[in-house]
């Protein structure tokens, strides 16, 4: 048991080291691509970056699974574990999407985000394995958090692409020019990015809908009401509504394009807010950070 926890932590640190290297190489790739005339063509650094990211992700999986085995339950019962699993899913979503579309150009963003999040949870939120209190012993914990983690992974990827879209749009309008922004030539056109972001966010939205519903069912089992406007419920609702607004914005004339992308980023901002500020500083029934 003790050993497994230690191995898990060791794997987590190794993951962070590999993600750091991958992040550096992704950035080098973008920088070099900015210099070449072709712009679009990936450099050989990109291959190495992907290889390191995949290796890191495998170790990340090891870290997550051993943590779960050590705790003899799902590895997402406190903030550290949620962060560990959510970043694993985030990188997994990014890698998985490559089979469908070449999205390696947001690799720097995704590896950077994963690294940052993993670093923060490991340094600030780490807690030892402890058994679950009765209120958290439920299959709904497994389902609810599982879909929340998946939703977060997709939203993060969607936000990465929306951010790229905004830069690209400004670039296309020549409002961002010069060498510093030349790396944007490695990115697809803004309209392509918008469609990509939309499709990924829509998948995230479906998972988030399940998060909301599974949470309500669990709340009914545990607290005797399926909805009580508890702080965490409020924020889950806000996020859901914001992404619904984002979906509508794409069908509303005058809102497509940059406004939609900004809504997507605002909504993802609410996801991050919900995970950090709400968990740590807000009062409510969902006290599970374990800190």
């Amino acid at each position, binding site marked *: 048991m003790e050993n497994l926890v230690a191995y898990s932590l060791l794997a987590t640190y190794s993951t962070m080291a590999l993600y750091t290297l991958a992040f550096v190489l992704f950035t080098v790739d973008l920088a070099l691509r900015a210099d070449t005339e072709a712009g679009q063509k990936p450099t050989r650094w990109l291959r190495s970056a992907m290889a390191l990211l995949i290796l890191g992700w495998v170790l990340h999986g090891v870290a997550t699974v051993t943590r779960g085995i050590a705790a003899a339950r799902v590895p997402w019962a406190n903030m550290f574990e949620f962060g560990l699993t959510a970043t694993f899913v985030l990188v997994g979503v990014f890698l998985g999407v490559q089979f469908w579309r070449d999205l390696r150009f947001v690799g720097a963003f995704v590896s950077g985000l994963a690294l940052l999040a993993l670093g923060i949870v490991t340094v600030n939120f780490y*807690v*030892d394995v*402890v*058994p*679950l*209190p*009765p*209120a958290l*012993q*439920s299959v*709904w914990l497994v389902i609810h958090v599982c879909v929340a983690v998946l939703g977060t992974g997709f939203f993060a990827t969607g936000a990465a692409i929306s951010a790229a879209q905004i830069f690209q749009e400004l670039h296309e309008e020549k409002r961002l020019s010069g060498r510093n922004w030349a790396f944007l030539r490695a990115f697809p056109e803004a309209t392509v990015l918008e*469609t990509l972001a*939309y*499709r990924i966010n*829509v998948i995230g939205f*479906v998972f988030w*809908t*399940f998060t909301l*519903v599974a949470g309500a069912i*669990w709340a*009914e*089992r*545990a*607290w*005797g*009401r*399926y909805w*009580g*406007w*508890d*702080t965490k419920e*409020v*924020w889950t*609702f*806000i996020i859901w*509504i*914001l992404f*619904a*607004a984002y979906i*509508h*914005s*794409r*069908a*509303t*004339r*005058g*809102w497509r394009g940059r406004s939609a992308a900004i*809504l997507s980023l605002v909504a993802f901002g*609410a996801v991050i807010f919900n995970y950090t500020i*709400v968990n740590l500083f*807000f*009062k*409510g*029934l969902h006290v599970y950070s374990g800190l």
Partner: protein
Amino acid sequence: MASLPPSDTSGHEGASSGERIGGQPADLDKDTLSFDTPGAPRKNRNAGAIINPRLGALGFARFVWRLLTSMRTALILLVLLAVAAIPGSLVPQRSSDPNGVVQFRTNDPELFEFYDSLSLFDTYTSPWFSAIYLLLFISLIGCILPRTSYHWKVLFEAPPAVPTSFARLEVTRTHRVEADLNAALDAAAAALRSARYRVVREGSAVRAERGYMRETGNLVFHVALVGILATLGFASGFGWSGQRVIVEGQAFTNQLSSYDSFNPGRFFDENALEPYGVRLNTFTPEYVMDESKGSWMPIDYTADVTVTEGQTSSGAALKVNEPLSVGGTSMYLLGNGFAPEITVRAPDGTVVFQQPVVFLSQDANLTSLGVVKIPDGLAEQVGMKGFFYPTATMLSSGALASSNPEPLNPTLTFNIYTGDLGLDQGVPRNVYELNTDDMTQIAGRHTDVDVELALGDSFELPGGLGTIEFSGLRRFIGVDIQHDPTQLGVGISTALAIAGLLVSFSTRRRRVWVVATAKGSATELSWGAQSRTDDPRLAASTDALIARIVPTDKVSS
């Protein structure tokens, strides 16, 4: 009325044309490509409005209605709803955190007044929050109705006519088939049919459409949202909830007088309570040591109960996360603690008080506080404030503390008062509080007489008043009992919403037209395809259709 917006169509075009045209060329948007966006049916109704250019009040009403039901308004209302929900997470809510509200009032009475005037402590029932969601739902209904009637029509109509030019369609293909015109069109129609298109042949052309379920799913989703709100609006008034503490060995019978507290819905009728009984036999918690913090933590709570309905009794286990369904209600295990049994005797030995007293726990090791009131039977009224320690341990300071939530060394201490308990004034008193304003302390902390009782110990009250004995130890549970008639409706609506969402998101709406031209003995087929949404697979799917007829290398786009 001069300030009213012009009631011709151009006046509200801005409001109602917020819908997607999706970058489709305007000339195709008329008949052939006016996919059933909510804009489409409204365009038809706009046509009606042109005939009556001066409608006055009615025109204004129409203007407001169109404004309210436009996509842009819906979007803005959604964002507003999200923003309006925020204060409720920053300020304690009466519904979910009443103690927090009381605390807020004590800390800052002025700010409390101000916030309260804005309904900030009842955010989710406040007029402004309600206004936003009601407007949103009016907008939603106004959106659903025309879309549904339009979609209903489309569902039974043939696919739209062939556009005059294919030039601006998303995907176009042309190829030759070594067959006469009829056979070639038959082959194209067959290919489309096998790809689940609705197909109509007309002269030398085929028109086809698929993916109607996209709009159907979308409508089901939005209707289900209305279903959720309607259920909440109509059914919640019939619900109720109540709380009750049950001590081991005692039973709860489901009638109004048995509840410690009760919150009826607006239409609650006392006869709705089905008579049943729940007796708590034993309550068993389980604790483990959390090594990292050095404290005990609960890992399981099980209440072993006997449920009696009519003539039948049966055993059941009530646990956290596993509510008990009985008599149309759900019973939830929410709290627990110790109820030391206390016996008080008069000097002559007659028992004047003997019952388990619920002590409310204060910390993880279940140090608990309780109050005993003896109004009658002794020479004076007696009130006692007690501390209970399941495993009493002496701290270095000399004070007692509990070091384990299990009763390994159960100990009671009391501060004892005599005087007026204040029970006779007809004012309801909290059983967990003792008002000592009109009382004098006769024993306990800060007096010469310490009262510290182990299980089975007795104590002689000063002045020959009588004796108190720590005569037994039981546990209690706190349960919440609920009847929530909204669950079924909300559950069904939610399931429909999710189903609609999944169907809508996973369906591609596509239209395909094929025009045949005879080229001697062969035929040239021109394909045009258009989708309503972003559909990156449109070209590939069209090519797949053609591949069913001819080898793809003969196709030009």
